[in-house]
């Protein structure tokens, strides 16, 4: 259904089936939820050599291959492992904030089995060596699958294009200037045109940069009261609408990241109706929090794009439920204490999200905004389709990337217990429902809840 890139990524060594695993694994007595296959039934999954061999009600304790390891899921939800299409892991360059190692621990604990990192590291990932570095570190870490996007322009400067063809062949899953929008319409036009030649995905941080310049939070009454410079909500849709004209000219595949306003949702909806190759994601804060979270200058509530007003929050939640927003990504942005314990306008924008992605997203299911299948689709099969990955579905022959979830268990988010190196989360202490019990990558268990 979605456009696939011309060539499948070849690096990303995490995709190689693990060689050492020989003992079959059977997960039985689970509620199998697979959005891609429209499956929601009680049954089991049989894994051999890192691949799903069989699944369904017929997979039980009886009739398993000899020597199979059996895990009784106790009726909990077994779904494809989550695919997080937007994270920052700070390696290389800022390893004091997060590393590929700690980031993959956080991912595994959050039920995320595949993630894609942004290129805004130091050095910036804008050449083949950078892409190969990430692939090698992911291979060495041996936990979750880690892919990367390449920069869209060299050094993220918004001027010269990177070697999209070569980077794509090396395994880059798409191209983006990370936290910057490409401001120059001519550069963006060429980038989209060139990307079209290789069928690669272009991802935009949609924000008109001059309109947002100097802004610290959403423009409005609260910004006025706090005396903080505001970013008008329309800065987002302005950039999306500009890009949509260029997408129409080029026919490229375009993905708008972290949609946060009602107007953006409408623009994307229209573009999809028109048949453009346009997709988008949002992050949990944009449907679970609004600008009031800032309260008395809480820098943990400073994000980019900023938290918006309540009508925008509601519109984003509705657009996820409706499917106008394709995916939910964590937009994981680790920052150390020093980056956040400063006056609000000086503070870094962003929050960690790998370990809150699932419980906060499940809030939409628990408050009956949408079905479990449709919610999990935003976290599994839909990002897989957009990224051109074979995982994200429970089916015979697919990689055995799976997450076991105790759907209803209530708990309070405890940031102190997070695996991420940074602790910048506004969700600490928030009551949520749903816990990751186990995470499997290629049939290997990479996380088990205590």
């Amino acid at each position: 259904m979605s456009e696939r890139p011309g060539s499948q990524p070849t690096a990303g060594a995490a995709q190689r089936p693990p060689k050492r695993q020989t003992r079959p694994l059977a997960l039985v007595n689970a509620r199998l939820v697979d959005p891609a296959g429209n499956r929601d039934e009680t049954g089991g999954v049989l894994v051999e050599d890192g691949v799903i061999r069989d699944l369904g009600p017929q997979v039980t304790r009886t009739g398993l291959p000899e020597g199979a390891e059996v895990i009784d899921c106790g009726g909990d939800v077994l779904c494809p492992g989550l695919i997080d299409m937007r994270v920052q892991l700070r390696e290389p360059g800022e390893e004091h904030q997060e590393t590929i190692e700690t980031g993959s621990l956080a991912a595994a604990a959050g039920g995320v089995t595949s993630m894609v990192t942004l290129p805004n590291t130091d050095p910036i990932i804008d050449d083949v060596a950078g892409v190969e570095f990430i692939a090698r570190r992911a291979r060495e870490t041996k936990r979750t699958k880690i892919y990367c996007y390449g920069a869209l322009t060299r050094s993220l400067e918004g001027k010269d294009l990177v070697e999209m063809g070569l980077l794509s062949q090396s395994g880059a899953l798409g191209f983006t200037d990370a936290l910057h929008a490409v401001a120059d319409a001519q550069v963006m036009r060429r980038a989209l045109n060139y990307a079209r030649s290789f069928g690669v995905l272009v991802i935009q941080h949609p924000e008109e940069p001059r309109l947002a310049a100097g802004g610290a939070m959403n423009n409005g009454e609260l910004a006025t009261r706090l005396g903080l410079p505001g970013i008008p909500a329309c800065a987002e849709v302005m950039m999306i609408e500009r890009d949509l004209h260029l997408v129409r000219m080029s026919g490229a595949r375009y993905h708008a990241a972290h949609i946060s306003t009602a107007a953006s949702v409408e623009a994307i909806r229209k573009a999809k109706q028109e048949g453009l190759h346009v997709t988008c994601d949002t992050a949990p804060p944009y449907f679970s929090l609004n600008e009031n979270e800032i309260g008395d200058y809480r820098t943990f509530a400073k994000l980019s794009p900023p938290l918006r007003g309540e009508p925008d929050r509601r519109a984003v939640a509705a657009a996820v439920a409706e499917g106008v927003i394709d995916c939910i990504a964590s937009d994981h942005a680790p920052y150390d204490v020093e980056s956040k314990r400063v006056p609000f306008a000086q503070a870094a924008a962003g929050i960690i999200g790998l370990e809150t992605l699932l419980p906060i997203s499940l809030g939409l299911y628990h408050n009956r905004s949408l079905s479990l299948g449709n919610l999990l689709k935003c976290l599994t099969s839909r990002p897989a389709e957009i990224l051109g990955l074979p995982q994200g579905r429970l089916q015979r022959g697919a990689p055995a990337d799976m997450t076991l979830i105790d759907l209803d268990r209530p708990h309070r988010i405890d940031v102190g217990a997070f695996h991420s190196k940074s602790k910048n989360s506004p969700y600490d202490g928030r009551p949520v429902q749903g816990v990751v019990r186990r995470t499997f990558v290629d049939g290997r268990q990479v996380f088990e809840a205590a």
Partner: protein
Amino acid sequence: MSEPARKPAAFFSHRHLLGIEGLSAEEITRLLDLSQSYAEQPKDDQRARSLLRGRTVMNLFFENSTRTRTSFELAAKRLGADVINMSVGTSSIKKGETLLDTAMTLNAMRPDVMIVRHPESGAVNLLSQKVDGAVINAGDGRHEHPTQALLDALTIRRRKGKLAGLLVAICGDVLHSRVARSNIHLLTKIGARVRVIAPTTLLPAQIDRMGVEVFTDMRKGLKDVDIVMMLRLQQERMQGAYVPSIREYFHFYGLDYDKLGAAKPDALIMHPGPMNRGVEIDSEVADDINRSVIREQVEMGVAVRMACLDALTRNLTGTNQ
């Protein structure tokens, strides 16, 4: 006035004075009454002289200021406190020390009151969470400048005998002004009617939600007002085009006798200083001894700051011996 066992929150229920927004009308009135008593007493009053004896008051200014810092310094000295002035803008910040490092270092010297000015909104709130003494916000970014609003209110009250029911126009660069925000909070809480008058580029978003009427035509906005509060055009905070030229700004938004004619005949003219003569206010108007109370504002500033220091130190534990 120096019993150590005095109960906290007896007079003023806040540990810090960070803004007007968190105060009740009653608390504001109480502070104004106390300020009035300081305004009336001779400046060498001996009882006042001993009130803060043994207390340390630290002026911590991350932004250049002469008048506000001097006013606080004088107020603290008139109450007998030891005063230390720190201009941090020129020292440790340049060496890479963070705001909170600076705060905690100075806190270790155990000041009873820290008076803080900072160019970033919210910075004084942040600092107040990390220190043991009381903190007075002497202006943070565009956010609040509570003692300025109190001294403005005291000046008005002395001249007009009341605040409630008066019509006050706040004119000019509201967008960048912490004085405007604190004054809007104070005046609306106390029952005055407030108008803001400015070109739309100098008005923050949804300012009407703060309970003010908005005017872009100065003559219409000044009609029948009791008080004209002018704001300084903060050219140093302006990156980009807010007004096309000083000439055009003065033509439409500078206070001159012609525009002032729309206000009540006995309307008072105020300005928080420092003034840009010929930009937001005509020189003659500013110096008009019958209308302008700008110098009186400065005088009331000391009384108000004495009252704030008095009120906050009543909540501190420990003796002042």
